[in-house]
């Protein structure tokens, strides 16, 4: 006679639909997880000289075997005035997961602009470099999946170049390649910029051998090396190509240039 309406209030608490709730999540294997990263390919490269720093990056943006666009810049001016960073003297290049790169750029740019607003002078590259390290380390347990290179001029006016890993380890260097074709470009740069494995002819044998002295390179020569490095990388890496964006930082300001690369 359970189906007969009794009219009496329920005894052991209300037993109505949608009231009881399970307290445990359903067990079983999850079918599909969400992976918050992707690799958008491409490569970047930076070389510092006596009174300049050159940064370069290709403009291809990929997802797997798809080319999303042939023009997505990886080089960003940091600081300066307004949304197009007028009068900036620092450049950030990011390669890896492009959405993280964009977020990182926006954070650093805001910080550098706030610094000038609060202190009345532009931030030095050394300070900016350390700040970038701290930003990256701040997300140590959910990292920005990018290899960053920061370029500018130090307080003595010499070319300054800093390179980073995704969690903020950083180092000042003469030259650095990052991204998909870093392994192709880096040994070429060792040889042509730092003259690695090159010796003075007839300077002896064994330990008497004199290493070829490292001389500061001329700007046009460096530019030629950068373009050579990228045309080589384009031949052998499918994620590199379409266009080459170059920024030259000098005391007069930042010059930006674009060179076409092969689209295949």
């Amino acid at each position, binding site marked *: 006679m359970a189906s007969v309406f009794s009219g009496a209030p329920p005894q052991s608490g209300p037993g109505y639909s949608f009231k009881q709730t399970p307290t445990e999540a359903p067990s079983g294997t999850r079918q599909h997880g969400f992976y918050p990263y992707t690799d958008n390919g491409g490569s970047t490269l930076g070389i510092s000289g006596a009174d300049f720093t050159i940064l370069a990056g290709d403009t291809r943006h990929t997802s797997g075997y798809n080319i999303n666009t042939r023009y997505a810049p990886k080089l960003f001016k940091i600081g300066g005035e307004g949304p197009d960073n007028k009068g900036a003297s620092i450049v950030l290049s990011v390669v890896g997961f492009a959405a993280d790169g964009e977020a990182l750029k926006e954070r650093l740019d805001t910080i550098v602009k706030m610094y000038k607003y609060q202190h009345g002078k532009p931030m030095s590259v050394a300070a900016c470099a350390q700040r970038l390290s701290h930003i990256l380390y701040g997300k140590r347990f959910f990292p920005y999946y990018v290899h960053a290179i920061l370029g500018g001029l130090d307080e003595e006016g010499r070319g300054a170049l800093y390179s980073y890993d995704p969690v903020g380890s950083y180092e000042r260097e003469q030259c650095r390649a990052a991204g998909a074709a870093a392994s192709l470009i880096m*040994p070429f740069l*060792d040889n042509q910029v730092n003259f*690695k*494995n*090159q010796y003075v002819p007839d300077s002896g044998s064994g330990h008497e051998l004199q290493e070829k002295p490292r001389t500061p390179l001329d700007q046009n020569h460096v530019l030629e090396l950068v373009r050579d*490095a990228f045309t080589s*990388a384009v031949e052998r890496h499918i994620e590199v190509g379409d266009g080459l964006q170059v920024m030259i930082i000098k005391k007069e300001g930042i010059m930006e240039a674009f060179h076409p690369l092969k689209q295949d």
Partner: protein
Amino acid sequence: MGSPFSINGGACVAMVGKDCVAIACDLRLGMQALTVSNNFPKIFNYGDVYLGLTGLATDVATVSDLFRYKVNMYRLREERNISPQTMANLVSSSLYERRFGPYFVSPVIAGINQTTGKPFICGFDSIGCIDFAKDFIVSGTASDQLFGTCEGLWEPDLGPEDLFETVSQALLNAVDRDALSGWGAHVYIIEKDKVTKRLLKGRQD
């Protein structure tokens, strides 16, 4: 454990010049990160043909011996040296015989064909697919780095001395950026009737 191709480490490169070819390899033998030997050449000579083998060291030894046997048998039957082109097809078919249980090696061939006098290089994957290249062939754990240095340094019609400098710089700078290769190098410059072998010291770390 990683891929069988990268347990022992090693690198090899071949290049074409004007009426000459070059082939070079590093000397390291390792067990993962531990270096076991710094005198493990990966280039083997079979008459007019030079064969570079990188990959699993046990297979490098086995395959090099297997081809010594096969080339000797060829020489006895044909009463002549094997040509680089014939050797390429022999390597290809021998590797494909093991299609479903391959030798973990990436071979490279360099030589000058004694009948035509033309330089010849080629490379293979571990199951015998031939890569006929007009410029250079790379293989081993430093292959990415070698692609970069070769693509950047190589140019057509290099003479024997310039080719030696180019192949040496390409190899040394490439292996210096690979933790599994290096510890010196062997370089062969092959001309029509002269072969020069040079030993390079390189970085010892």
